[in-house]
C-alpha cells in the first residue's frame, strides 16, 4: 500500500486538472460534485489502507519514503551541490495529517455540493478545492523542506483563489490579496530558513537534516535563527501574532472554504511544520519560549476580540486564531503530541462549527449578523444540535473532544519544564473566554426570540449538507477518546502513536514521562469549571437578562469599541507599514529617484548638449558660400602649415 503513496497526491491533482479544463463544458453539478469529492474520497480510502498496513507492522517499520523524480538541482553532482527530489514520506505524523486532510476534506467536498448549488462557478470551486487538497497533501507528505514549501505556497494560492472566489465583490479581492501577501511575509522567513538549513546541514531532506541535527548539542545561534525564521513562516500561515490579520478577512470566501482551509487544515500547517521540525526546535530552547509566548498571547488576544464580534463567521475566525494559539502553546512547551492532538480535534469541531454556520447563513439568505438571528433552533434542528456539540467540544466540556486535547495542553503548559503558571493562566483565561463567546454565539443564533424579518422562512439544509454535519458532530463528540490521558485511565493512544516522531526532540530536551500527580486532577477540575462558568455567564447575559450585554457595553464603551475594532491593528498596520511603503515607492522612489534624479540627470545632460548645440548653431547660416569660404580658408591653413613644415 505504501508504494501507492504518490496516488494520494495524484488523485486530487487529476481532479483539479480534469475539472479545471473540462469543467466549463460539464454543466452537470452532480457529475462535477461526484468527481470532485470522489477524488478526495479515493485519497482518503488509500490513506486508510496505508494506515491499516502501518498498524499491522512494527513501529520502526512504519516509515517509508517514495521518490518520484529529481526536481531542482544545480545538477553537476559535486560535493555540497544542491539537489532536491519530489519524494513523499509516510510516517506516523504524515499519515495522521493525511487522514485529517482527506477525511475532513472529503466531508466538506460533499457539503459543498449542497452549499454551492446553483453557483455559476460550481466547477471552478471544486477544481480549486481539489487543487487545495493536492497542495495540502504535498505539504504534509513531503520528504524535504522544498517540496513542503511547494505545498505551503500551493495552499496559500488556493486560499487566495477561494477567498476571492466571488471576485465580483470588491472586498473579496482585498481579502484574498491580503491573505496572500501576509502569507508571503511568512514565506520570506521560510525561504531564509531553508537557505540556512541547507548551508548548515547540506541538504533539505528531512532525514538527512534530522540525522545531522541529532548529534548537535542545543544552544547554537544558527539553530535559533533557523527555528525563528521557520516560526515566522508559521505565524503567517497559521495566523499568529503579528501576522494573523488576514484570517478574519479571509471569511469573505464561501463558508466551506472557511471550514476546510481557514479552520481545519491549512492554518494548522504551521503547527504541523513545527511538529515536523521538533528536533530543530529542541536544539533552540529560546525559540521554544518564543513559540509558547506568541501562542499563549495569541490565544488570549484573539479570544478577547471574539467576545464582541457580531458576524457569525468572524467569531469563529477569531476562535480559530485563538485555538491555533493553543496549539503553538503546546509546541512551545514541547508538548508536541498534545499539540497535534488538539490540531486533530480542532479540525473536527471547528470544521463542524463553520459548516454549521454555513447552514445558518444559507438558511438566513446570506445574513451573517448574529444580532439579526435568534430562535433558529426550531427551524434548523439538525444544524442546531450538531452546532451545540461543536460548541461544547470547543468550550472544553468533558467528554467531548476539545476537553481532552485542551486540557492536555493546559496541563503541559503548567507542568512541562518549559511551561509556567503564567502560561497556564493565559491558557485558562483564553478557555473562559472561549466558553463565553461560544455560548454567546449559540444563544444569540439559535435561542431566544427571532430577530429577523417575518418574510424570511429559514429551513433546514439538504442532506448533502446535514450528513457531513452529523458525521463531524460524532467525531467531535468521540474524537477525544483517542487521547484520553493516563490520569483518566486512558492510554493516550495518539501521543503513543506519534512517539517515534517526537522521541529525538524529547531526548534532546530530556523530557521523561511524569507520574500522575494530584495537581493534574485539580487543574482538570478547574478547567471544567471555567468552561462551564463561561457558558453560564453567556447564558445569563444573552438569554436570562438580555439587556445586560448592552449595559455592559455602554458601561465599558471604550474597551468595547477597541475590541469591536479589533484593537485597530489593521489600521495600525496600514498607517505604519502599508501606507509608508506605498508613499515612499510612489513619491520618493518612482517620482523622486526615477523621474527626477535619474531621468532628470540624463535628460539634463541631453539638454545641456542641446544648449551647446543651439549656441553653436548660430555659426550655421545655411548659406553654402559661407561654408565654402571656411573650406577654402582651411585649405589655405593646411597648405601654409605644410609649407612651414617643409622649411
Amino acid at each position: 500500500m505504501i508504494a501507492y503513496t504518490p496516488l494520494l497526491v495524484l488523485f486530487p491533482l487529476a481532479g483539479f486538472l480534469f475539472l479545471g479544463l473540462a469543467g466549463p463544458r460539464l454543466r452537470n453539478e452532480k457529475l462535477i460534485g461526484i468527481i470532485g469529492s470522489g477524488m478526495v474520497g479515493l485519497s482518503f480510502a488509500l490513506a486508510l489502507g496505508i494506515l491499516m498496513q502501518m498498524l499491522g507492522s512494527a513501529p520502526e517499520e512504519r516509515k517509508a519514503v517514495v521518490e518520484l523524480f529529481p526536481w531542482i538541482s544545480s545538477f553537476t553532482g559535486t560535493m555540497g551541490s544542491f539537489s532536491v527530489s519530489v519524494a513523499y514520506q509516510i510516517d506516523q505524523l504524515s499519515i495522521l495529517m493525511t487522514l485529517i486532510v482527506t477525511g475532513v476534506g472529503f466531508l466538506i467536498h460533499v457539503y459543498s455540493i449542497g452549499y454551492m448549488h446553483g453557483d455559476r462557478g460550481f466547477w471552478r470551486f471544486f477544481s480549486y478545492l481539489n487543487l487545495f487538497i493536492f497542495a495540502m497533501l504535498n505539504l504534509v507528505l513531503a520528504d524535504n523542506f522544498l517540496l513542503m514549501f511547494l505545498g505551503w505556497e500551493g495552499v496559500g494560492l488556493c486560499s487566495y483563489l477561494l477567498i476571492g472566489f466571488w471576485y465580483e465583490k470588491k472586498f473579496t479581492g482585498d481579502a484574498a490579496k491580503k491573505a496572500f501577501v501576509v502569507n508571503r511575509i511568512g514565506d520570506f522567513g521560510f525561504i531564509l530558513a531553508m537557505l540556512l538549513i541547507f548551508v548548515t546541514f547540506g541538504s533539505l531532506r528531512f532525514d538527512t537534516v534530522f540525522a545531522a541535527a541529532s548529534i548537535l548539542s542545543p544552544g547554537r545561534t544558527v539553530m535559533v535563527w533557523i527555528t525563528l525564521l521557520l516560526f515566522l513562516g508559521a505565524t503567517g500561515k497559521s495566523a499568529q501574532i503579528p501576522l494573523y490579520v488576514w484570517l478574519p478577512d479571509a471569511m469573505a470566501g464561501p463558508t466551506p472554504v472557511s471550514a476546510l482551509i481557514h479552520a481545519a487544515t491549512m492554518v494548522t500547517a504551521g503547527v504541523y511544520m513545527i511538529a515536523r521540525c521538533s528536533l530543530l526546535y529542541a536544539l533552540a530552547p529560546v525559540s521554544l519560549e518564543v513559540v509558547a509566548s506568541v501562542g499563549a498571547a495569541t490565544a488570549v488576544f484573539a479570544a478577547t476580540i471574539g467576545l464582541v464580534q457580531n458576524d457569525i463567521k468572524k467569531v469563529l475566525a477569531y476562535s480559530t486564531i485563538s485555538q491555533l494559539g493553543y496549539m503553538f502553546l503546546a509546541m512551545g512547551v514541547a508538548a508536541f503530541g498534545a499539540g497535534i492532538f488538539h490540531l486533530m480535534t480542532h479540525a473536527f469541531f471547528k470544521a463542524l462549527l463553520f459548516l454549521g454556520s454555513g447552514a445558518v447563513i444559507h438558511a438566513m439568505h446570506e445574513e451573517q449578523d448574529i444580532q439579526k438571528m435568534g430562535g433558529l433552533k426550531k427551524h434548523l434542528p439538525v444544524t442546531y444540535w450538531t452546532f451545540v456539540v461543536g460548541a461544547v467540544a470547543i468550550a472544553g466540556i468533558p467528554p467531548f473532544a476539545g476537553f481532552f486535547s485542551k486540557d492536555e495542553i493546559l496541563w503541559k503548559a503548567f507542568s512541562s519544564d518549559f511551561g509556567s503558571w503564567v502560561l497556564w493562566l493565559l491558557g485558562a483565561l483564553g478557555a473562559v473566554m472561549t466558553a463565553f463567546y461560544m455560548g454567546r454565539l449559540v444563544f444569540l443564533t439559535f435561542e431566544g426570540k427571532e430577530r429577523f424579518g417575518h418574510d424570511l422562512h429559514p429551513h433546514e439544509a439538504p442532506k448533502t449538507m446535514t450528513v457531513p454535519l452529523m458525521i463531524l458532530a460524532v467525531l467531535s463528540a468521540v474524537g477525544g477518546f483517542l487521547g484520553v490521558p493516563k490520569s483518566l485511565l486512558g492510554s493516550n493512544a495518539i501521543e503513543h502513536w506519534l512517539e517515534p516522531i517526537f522521541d529525538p526532540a524529547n531526548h534532546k530536551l530530556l523530557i521523561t514521562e511524569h507520574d500522575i500527580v494530584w495537581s493534574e486532577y485539580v487543574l482538570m477540575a478547574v478547567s471544567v469549571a471555567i468552561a462551564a462558568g463561561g457558558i453560564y455567564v453567556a447564558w445569563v447575559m444573552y438569554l436570562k437578562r438580555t439587556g445586560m450585554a448592552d449595559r455592559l457595553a455602554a458601561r465599558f464603551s471604550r474597551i468595547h469599541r477597541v475590541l469591536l475594532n479589533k484593537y485597530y491593528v489593521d489600521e495600525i498596520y496600514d498607517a505604519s507599514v502599508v501606507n509608508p511603503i506605498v508613499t515612499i515607492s510612489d513619491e520618493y522612489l518612482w517620482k523622486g529617484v526615477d523621474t527626477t534624479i535619474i531621468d532628470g540627470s540624463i535628460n539634463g545632460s541631453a539638454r545641456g548638449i542641446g544648449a551647446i548645440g543651439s549656441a553653436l548653431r548660430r555659426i550655421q547660416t545655411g548659406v553654402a558660400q559661407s561654408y565654402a569660404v571656411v573650406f577654402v580658408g582651411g585649405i589655405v591653413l593646411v597648405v601654409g602649415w605644410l609649407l612651414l613644415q617643409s622649411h
Partner: protein
Amino acid sequence: MTLESILFIVFAAVGLASALLLVTRRNPIISALYLILNFFALAGLYLTLHAQFIAVIQILVYAGAIMVLFVFVIMLLNLRDERSLREGLSWKKVFAAGVSFGLLMEVIYILMTSASGMTELLPAKATEIGTVEAIGSRLFTRFLFPFEVTSVLLTAAIVGAILLAKKKLD
C-alpha cells in the same frame, strides 16, 4: 621674344582679363559673354601647347554647348535686370577675397620655389600626342572603363536634369 611667347602673353592676358570681368559683372549675360571669350583664350593656349584636338573640343563643347545652356537658362529666368541682386561689399566678401588671394600666393610660392626640370617644350612630341589618334587610343585602351562609365554619368545627368527642371513630378 619668340612667336610662341607673344601668343602666350596675348592669350594669357585675354584669359585673365575675361576671367576677372566674368566674376565682376553684374549682368549674367555680360558674364556669360566674357566666359566665352575666356574659352576662346584657353583654346588658343591649348594650341600653343600643340593640343589641337583639345582646343577644337574646347570650342565645340564649352563655347558651343555649355554656354548655350547657360545663356538659355538666363533667358529663361529673365534675369537681366534684377535690382534685388545688388552686390555690395561686405566683410564676408573681403575676407573671402583675402582667403583666395592667400591661396594664390601660396600656390605661386610653391611653383616658384620648386625646381621644374621640364622647361623645354618638345614641339614634335607634343604635336604627336595631341592628335585625335593618340588621345583616342588612350581613351579606348587604358581608360576604356572610365570612358564607358562617363556614359552612365551623362545619362544620369540627363535624367536628373529633366526630373529637377520638370514642373511637377506626377
